[in-house]
């Protein structure tokens, strides 16, 4: 299966977040993920998009969010890029720590980590790119299919 790539360059609005979530739901289903898994992937993409629109670009109408999907036989890879001030993932507090449990915010990246198999951050100038990978069950982790008998 050849890779299928789709990307969107969107305004920093909540409508863009909803569009990203919808696209993720559709592509995850096409990639062979079941309804539960597709829902979790879509939520991860939604959370990353909210971070980009809200915390990265601060709804700035001059800044864009770029969301790229790559579908292969083995995995769905999603990158979300903003044009904000940058994010240091090491400084994101643990939402499960007792002192943070009742905080109103700070669970987005935690949920992305919980729902996706791999997550990487890349600093841009300016901005941040988060790349999330969900492997199709049965595929191995180096990008090649498991050997068949």
């Amino acid at each position, binding site marked *: 299966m050849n890779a299928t790539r789709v990307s969107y360059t969107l305004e920093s609005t909540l409508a863009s977040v909803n569009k990203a979530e919808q696209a993720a739901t559709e592509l995850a289903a096409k990639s062979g993920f079941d309804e539960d898994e597709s829902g979790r992937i879509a939520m991860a993409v939604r959370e990353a998009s909210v971070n980009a629109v809200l915390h990265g670009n601060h709804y700035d109408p001059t800044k864009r969010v770029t969301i790229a999907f790559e579908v292969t036989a083995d995995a769905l890879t999603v990158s979300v890029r903003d044009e904000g001030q940058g994010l240091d993932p090491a400084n994101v507090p643990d939402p499960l720590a007792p002192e943070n449990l009742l*905080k109103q915010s700070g669970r987005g990246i*935690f*949920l992305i980590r919980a729902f996706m198999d791999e997550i990487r951050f890349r600093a841009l100038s300016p901005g941040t790119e988060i790349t999330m990978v969900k492997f199709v069950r049965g595929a191995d982790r180096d990008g090649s299919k498991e050997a068949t008998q």
Partner: protein
Amino acid sequence: MKSSSRKVDGVTIVDLSGRITLGEGSVVLRDTVKDLSSQGDKKILLNLGDVTYIDSSGIGELVSAYTSVRNAGGELKLLNLTKKVHDLLQITKLYTVFDISDDEASAIASFSR
């Protein structure tokens, strides 16, 4: 998201339906709980049975509602979680924070008299 409230045995039950997400249901939830608190309601039961989706902002709004009601001397409990919402509260360790029930009558009875 839609929200409507009714009172049973001194407990205000808020029936919520739809999505609790950033910019959608989270504002409705916040305003609903704020209005009830300003009316002096201190026993609030959020019925999430028809909530189809909740994101981290929605979770944050539930936590905020819980703490604001508690800080005002009241109690806020949850009723009828869907599997998705149940799973989300479990992985965020909030399942043990909230008082959660699947039965309306016993949830109402659990509020302090």
